[in-house]
């Protein structure tokens, strides 16, 4: 049995709006193992986004526990959590979320900057990654000079820059045409083959064909349980 990378144990997230309490997650259990390609699917309002925030260690649960490898994230300081998150998880967003004032190369280097990796090394890794995603000729371009597919490939290169355990992709094809979307999915598939753990959150059930494991979410719960 492969070891767990990210584990959600009876996770609750309750939002308080005025007097009303709205549970987004009500006892979510997810166990993501090393080397898996997991698709988290569910209709809108099912708690998908909140699940994704929990898996990405971007949010703290109201109740229950989130483990990133062996660390209980609720016990980590904000700075430690950021440091670990930056090292262990690479994010790919639906809207790419590149920093608009930085070139493709600088965007890919940024996560390594936050890990205090020396500049020379950062440059080398970032260039290699951009070549790997097929953008070796676009390193000096700003995001505004790139197409949607290219932006998402820069985002994938950025996600890979600290050589994380897990790539967390939130609707990675949502803003792309179907052909480009397919290219991106093949790229993620390829990364999984190379040993990366991929977690993809999507409402598009078509994409589940790329995954080895599908988790269905409804009403803030994992209905596979």
């Amino acid at each position, binding site marked *: 049995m492969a070891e767990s990378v990210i584990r959600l144990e009876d996770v609750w997230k309750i939002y308080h709006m005025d007097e009303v309490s709205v549970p987004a997650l009500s006892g979510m259990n997810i166990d993501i193992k090393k080397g898996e390609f997991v698709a988290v699917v569910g209709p809108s309002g099912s708690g998908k986004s909140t699940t994704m925030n929990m898996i990405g260690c971007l949010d703290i649960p109201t109740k229950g526990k989130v483990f990133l490898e062996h660390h209980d994230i609720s016990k980590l300081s904000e*700075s430690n959590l950021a440091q670990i998150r930056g090292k262990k998880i690479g994010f790919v967003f639906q809207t790419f979320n590149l920093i608009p004032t930085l070139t493709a190369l*600088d965007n890919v280097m*940024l*996560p390594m900057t*936050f890990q205090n990796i020396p500049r020379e090394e950062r440059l080398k890794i970032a260039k290699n990654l951009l070549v790997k995603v097929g953008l070796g000729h676009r390193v000096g371009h700003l995001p505004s000079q790139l197409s949607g597919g290219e932006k998402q490939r820069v985002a994938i290169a950025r996600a890979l820059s600290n050589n994380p355990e897990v790539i967390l992709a939130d609707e990675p094809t949502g803003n792309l045409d179907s052909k480009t979307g397919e290219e991106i999915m093949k790229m993620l598939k390829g990364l999984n083959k190379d040993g990366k753990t991929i977690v993809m959150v999507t409402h598009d059930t078509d994409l589940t064909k790329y995954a080895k494991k599908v988790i269905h979410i409804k009403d803030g719960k994992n209905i596979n349980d």
Partner: protein
Amino acid sequence: MIRDFIGYGISNLRRSGLRSWLTMIGIFIGMASVVALISLGQGLENSINEQFEAIGADKIIVQSKGIFGAPTTEVESLTEKDLKIIENTNGIVDATGYIIDTAKLEFNDIVRYFVLVGIDNEDELIKEIYSYDIEEGRNLKKGEKFKVVLGNDFFKSELFDKKLKLRDTILLNDIEFTIVGFYETVGNQIDDRNVYVSYEVAEDLYDKEGEYSFIFAKAASDTIPEEAAERVEKEIRDDRGLDEGNEDFTVQSAKDLFESFATILNILQIFLIGIAGISLVVGGIGIMNTMYTAVLERTKEIGVMKSIGAKNSDILMIFVIESGILGFVGGVIGVILGVGFSKMVEIIAANAGYSIIKISFPPFLIIGTLIFAFVVGSLSGLIPAYKASKLQPVDALRYE
């Protein structure tokens, strides 16, 4: 890492170009005024010091209180008797007096009024104080009648629609005088327009036999000039039978005189720099405002950076550096403008005949201004940056 943050800050400031420039105007106006005021003040102080050194720290100046005061009050002028008292005061080695009055000059059918100085050019003490050199002709001899030496401006400028030259005859208080010399420029227009005659001639012209407008005295080298000045004051007071505090004359050592100039100058400078400081505070608030806007605009970006591993301290640093750059660039422009402005004042003053104003830019002023500008910028950005650093990644990412 800092290097990357600086690069990132610069690219962000360029992205919001006009806003960054407008923000910087607030800072550089303040900085330019501070630099200009300090360098001009410093220049003025330097030239005062130069003059002080030219006259000498051992000099004591005695004058009637009424000389520049209201003409209605009957004022005892200084006399030969006073001069004797001063000369005989303990600690005084030499003393001399001279007359200053208004002269009516007529030449080329034009009448103009100038300041006349009646001095004994052969007196050693006068030579020390009035150490001006002759540019054309010669100096006056003791008691020389109907001869006049003029300031440099009479020689250089057309004060009577044409320049005066040696051996020209002018009417001084309706009496014919011949010009025998011109002094070289002393650096300020007022003194460059003085008219010099021998003391005896001034006595006759103004009917002031045995009287002086000023008496200069020289303290002995083993005496403290200020103490000698006090003794002089006491001697004259006793002679005139006056109470302390009711003197109709003043005695000042050169040091007192220049210290009072320096005090006035300092007060003026502090006042003006205070006003410039207010504009700096306003500039700082401008930076704060801009940084708040930047944090709001880039909330999502902050969320992205946090999700890819930025610590709170990284975000804080990014925004503080960015506002520091705003302040620093504002400071650089401010220094350039300030230096330019005071240079301009110097040139204009020199053209108007006041070449004694020499501005100075001590390195501490330039470096200090730039550091100060960076600190003002950083501090102004601190609160917005702190706010940015405390954003929760999940909330920031959701922000549209």
